[in-house]
């Protein structure tokens, strides 16, 4: 369900970010007013798309606006953070290699390196994957980083969901790329695009940056790109096709050269609305009071439940359903129940006690 204001905010964000990942060819002319930009600047910053937005408006008249000052500062900060992040990746790779573990760098810098500048994209954790045999030794080796400013994530659903592929096969498609003074291992392009698509769809908070990553990648694909490897089996192949379709429909990327062009042009409406809504209502990470506290103090429970209500996209992915024309409401409900079963149990107990008491 998408109200008009969410739809227009989401569309405005899409307009600002269309082509923002390019150095060439130039993105289409940006036709929005300073007041329209000021409406979405906060959302762009919160969803960490500020640097990309700055890159997009930097040669337009909008560069003189107050909103542009905020966006350019985000760009400067991201540029410095990129430098720090690269330094940290080198440290972590060196450390793991000294323990005879060869990690694969995924997401983050491994996609940022395709942007015209590394600071256009935000960085969070260092996402690495290792073979299941190396997982425990890697966790032990990385203990020395605990408590430091370097966060490392070794567990990734997108990789676990690689279908029937073996680690050996997966690893054989990786390759080394230069980062500062060393080579780091990154995914093969087929696996990389797949991981980016699945990562975007499965997350509870979808930043527009993730769709820009996919758009960028689609424009960088070489002629020998193996779509069969990338798409794999259903339902993942359908999800990936739809993620590509979102990049096409919201950010204007051409899908003519892809085998999923037809699917990309015919997406379920709820999927597009779902993404626009997530962009328009993007919130920072929140610590919320446990739902159980609302059993004694029911005020605010509606808002608390609304905030926790899962997105239709995430729910369909959790239940491994293809994206059909019908919104996956039953799966959202099922997803909500599976996430909140403790609370639901407590709620039923509380209702039972009340009815016994009365």
């Amino acid at each position: 369900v998408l109200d008009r204001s969410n739809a227009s905010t989401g569309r405005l964000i899409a307009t600002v970010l269309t082509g923002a990942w390019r150095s060439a060819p130039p993105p289409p002319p940006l036709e929005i007013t300073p007041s329209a930009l000021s409406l979405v600047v906060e959302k762009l910053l919160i969803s960490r798309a500020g640097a990309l937005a700055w890159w997009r408006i930097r040669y337009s008249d909008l560069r003189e606006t107050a909103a542009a000052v905020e966006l350019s500062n985000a760009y400067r900060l991201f540029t410095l953070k990129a430098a720090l992040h690269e330094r940290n990746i080198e440290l972590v790779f060196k450390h793991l290699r000294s323990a005879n573990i060869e990690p694969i760098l995924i997401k983050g810098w491994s996609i940022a390196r395709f942007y015209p500048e590394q600071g256009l994209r935000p960085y969070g954790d260092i996402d690495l994957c290792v073979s299941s045999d190396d997982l425990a030794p890697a966790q032990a080796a990385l203990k020395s980083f605990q408590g430091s400013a370097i966060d490392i994530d070794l567990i990734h659903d997108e990789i676990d969901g690689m279908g029937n592929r073996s680690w050996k096969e997966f690893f054989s498609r990786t390759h080394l790329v230069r980062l500062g003074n060393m080579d780091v291992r990154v995914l093969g392009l087929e696996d990389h695009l797949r991981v980016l698509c699945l990562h975007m769809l499965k997350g509870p908070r979808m930043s527009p940056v993730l769709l820009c990553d996919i758009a960028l990648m689609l424009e960088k694909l070489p002629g020998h790109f193996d779509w069969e490897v990338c798409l794999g089996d259903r339902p993942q192949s359908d999800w990936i096709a739809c993620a590509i379709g979102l990049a096409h429909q919201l950010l204007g990327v051409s899908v003519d050269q892809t085998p999923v062009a037809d699917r990309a042009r015919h997406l379920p409406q709820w999927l597009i609305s779902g993404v626009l809504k997530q962009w328009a209502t993007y919130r920072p990470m929140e610590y919320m009071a446990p739902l159980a506290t609302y059993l004694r103090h029911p005020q605010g429970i509606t808002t608390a439940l609304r905030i926790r209500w899962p997105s239709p996209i995430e729910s369909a992915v959790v239940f491994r359903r293809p994206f059909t024309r019908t919104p996956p409401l039953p799966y959202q409900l099922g997803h909500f129940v599976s996430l909140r079963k403790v609370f639901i149990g407590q709620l039923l107990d509380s209702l039972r006690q009340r009815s016994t008491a009365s």
Partner: protein
Amino acid sequence: MEQQPAPLARTRNLVVREVSDELLIYDLDNDKAHCLNKSAALVWKNCNGTVTIPDLAQLLASELQSPIDEDFIWLALDQLQKFHLLEQEVARPAGVHALSRRQLMKGLGVAAVVALPLVISLVAPTALQAQTVIIIPPPK
């Protein structure tokens, strides 16, 4: 004759990135980020501990294709010192007084304003700071 000071830029524990006309510096000692405009960046880059203030003025004049005096260099050094971007404090020789940006601008004329050295501290935009976890209080 009083010896001319030769400032030395601090390079330890700094992450530096050049972006178009600006130099961005992240100070790992205090987790602060700074942005130096072109002229401040030129001063910082040329502070190698051997180049004196008059030499710096000459260097910048040639780089920026504009007459630069020592007051201009001192304005940059004052800011670099303030943000801990020099190894040691540079003492002004006797008789050299600090000039404000305004005084310098008056002296140089409007055309020179763009080249005045400027170091600003980069602060995450308010909305970006909200990336950290926010806490919604429990119901009362």
